């Protein structure tokens, strides 16, 4: 995929890193450049929301469990791996 707008859309939809300056250099005209900049702003807005995630720093204790590792996060919460090797989910 070589079109810079398609690559910018991938960055915005998939969360992959791109070199925005390089993409802007490839813009074929002013309209495409403005679209790239708007997609860059959308990506920044998404990152700002994501960066407000409430991951807890591991390790920490949760009741009787010693939580060692953060596994994943989703819409409804965070998933950690406790020392007992039983996966638990905590709501935000």
């Amino acid at each position, binding site marked *: 995929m070589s079109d810079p*707008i398609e690559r910018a859309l991938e960055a915005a939809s998939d969360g992959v890193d791109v070199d925005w300056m390089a993409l802007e250099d490839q813009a074929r005209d002013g309209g495409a450049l403005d679209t790239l900049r*708007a997609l860059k702003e959308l990506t920044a*807005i998404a990152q700002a929301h994501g960066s407000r995630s409430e991951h807890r720093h591991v390790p920490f204790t949760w009741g009787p469990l010693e939580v060692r590792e953060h596994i994943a996060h989703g819409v409804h919460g965070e998933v950690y791996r406790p020392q007992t090797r039983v996966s638990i989910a905590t709501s935000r």
Partner: protein
Amino acid sequence: MVRWASGRLPAYARDLAETQDLVQDSLVRAFKKIEGIEIRGEGALQAYLRQVLLNAIRMELRRVRRRPAPGPMPQDLEVGDATPLDQAIGRQTLERYERALETLRPEERELVIAHVEFGFSHQEIAQAFGKPTPNAARMALQRALLRVAEAMKRHEP
């Protein structure tokens, strides 16, 4: 929702109205009215609740501006309406984003909100919006993102 709301309240408003209470009250009011509203799925529900909460935040900000909190004024007080998102992104950009969202068709708007603001994965979007596969959800999301980007261009100062 609490996390989402906390990014849209300046510090002084968060001090006056506990964000959790604001979210809880707004959601209770929203669900009381929900029988009279057509909700087409999880994504639409989330967008509806987001709008209810956004309206509540705007009302709270107007209330706080009209009636400042009682008590001594700290000497190092910095007066400002900037929210955490304003500080991270810039208010003008956020306002252009909000205006651009309003120009989209409902499902496009809901897709953008689900992904950009609530971090839905392609799998979660597929489930919430009834798309057959995560890749179909991804394609629909990309079309919606392009539409909102084009609309943001039109709202540039």
